[in-house]
């Protein structure tokens, strides 16, 4: 019996781990094993190392040099944004996306907002960021009526927030939004489309998953990324299957 003990022990431990693996680790929990699994994932990324990125992307950074020369983020005048859109647009980009929330009026001069809106309109392919306040829980919510203004906007900008089909598929709980922060109406109307720019860090505060749809009022809203891709695939010879 004493000779068999290590073998029995090993089998017990094996079964224990098998049960753990079968009950998929829940990414929203703060458990020790989940945490370990996340760290392990990070280590695998670093082992693999960086990879060659797609050549289709280019970032225009609102960096330290920009804020020091044009004014800090708080008082940054929007005529700069108008000039930027015109400059980028002259090169013929497939799509321009703003990972910036323009929900309030320009503090120095409202004429700046008009200039920005006109530049956005001229470009015709600008996607603006919106922000969804998030609830702490995932789940499902009841379908609510859209306000007439939002209804008009989502149709015109082809956002089409989809209503979830009623079913008992437990795997489809979504990140829930509690409030939608839209861009300034003037800018929103001029833009080609809009998508959310939220981050969704996991329980440890790290970002490893990023939802591409957030449910708000029973409807699914797409991310800035998806809305940009939608423009991109329509306007270029590159095709994305699926």
């Amino acid at each position, binding site marked *: 019996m004493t*000779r068999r003990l290590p073998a029995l022990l090993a089998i017990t431990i*094996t079964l224990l781990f098998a049960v753990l693996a079968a009950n998929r680790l829940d990414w929203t929990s703060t458990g020790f094993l989940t945490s370990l699994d996340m760290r392990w994932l990070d280590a*695998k990324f670093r082992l693999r190392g960086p990879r060659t*990125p797609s050549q289709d992307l280019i970032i*225009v950074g609102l960096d330290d040099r920009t804020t020091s020369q044009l004014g800090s983020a708080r008082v940054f005048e929007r005529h700069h944004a108008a000039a*930027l859109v015109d400059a*980028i647009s002259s090169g013929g980009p497939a799509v321009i996306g703003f990972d910036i929330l323009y929900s309030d009026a320009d503090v120095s001069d409202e004429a700046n907002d008009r200039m920005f809106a006109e530049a956005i309109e001229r470009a015709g392919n600008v996607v603006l960021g919106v922000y969804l306040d998030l609830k702490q829980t995932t789940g499902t919510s009841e379908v609510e009526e859209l306000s007439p203004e939002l209804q008009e906007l989502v149709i015109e900008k082809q956002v089409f927030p989809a209503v979830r089909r009623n079913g008992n598929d437990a795997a489809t709980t979504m990140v829930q939004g509690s409030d939608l922060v839209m861009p300034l109406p003037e800018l929103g109307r001029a833009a080609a489309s809009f998508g959310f720019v939220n981050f969704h860090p996991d329980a440890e505060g790290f970002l490893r*998953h990023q939802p591409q749809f957030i449910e708000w009022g029973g409807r699914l809203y797409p*991310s800035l990324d998806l809305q940009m891709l939608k423009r991109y695939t329509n306007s270029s010879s590159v095709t994305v299957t699926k």
Partner: protein
Amino acid sequence: MVNFNGPSNTYPLVSWVDVEEGRVDPSIFHDKIVIVGPHAIGLGDVVPTPFDPVLPGVELHANVIDNIISQRYLVRSTMTTMVDLGLILVFGFAVALYMPKMGATRSIFYASLAFLLFTALTSGCSCSSDGS
């Protein structure tokens, strides 16, 4: 799951002020996906990620879009769970059967080997070669 391509500055970056003031040739934007956003740690729009503890938010969006274009996103599917489960059982029983018959040194050697093998097999989803 976001399949991160690297730390900050993995994607071509130009400065807003340079573009606005014409120091960047606009033709670089031709047919590109252009993302405009804060790219300074002081502006606070940063997220901690496996490669970079302070990845600017715009770069996260770049990674996500890139994943979708190149279809290299990571998915934890039922398949992954089944593979995990299968390997755990195989290795577990192998250990149970053979380990007691070995000496300590050989046990350590084979245990390390099993661990490496398990890692190599299960990380196929994130380490699989894709021609890049």
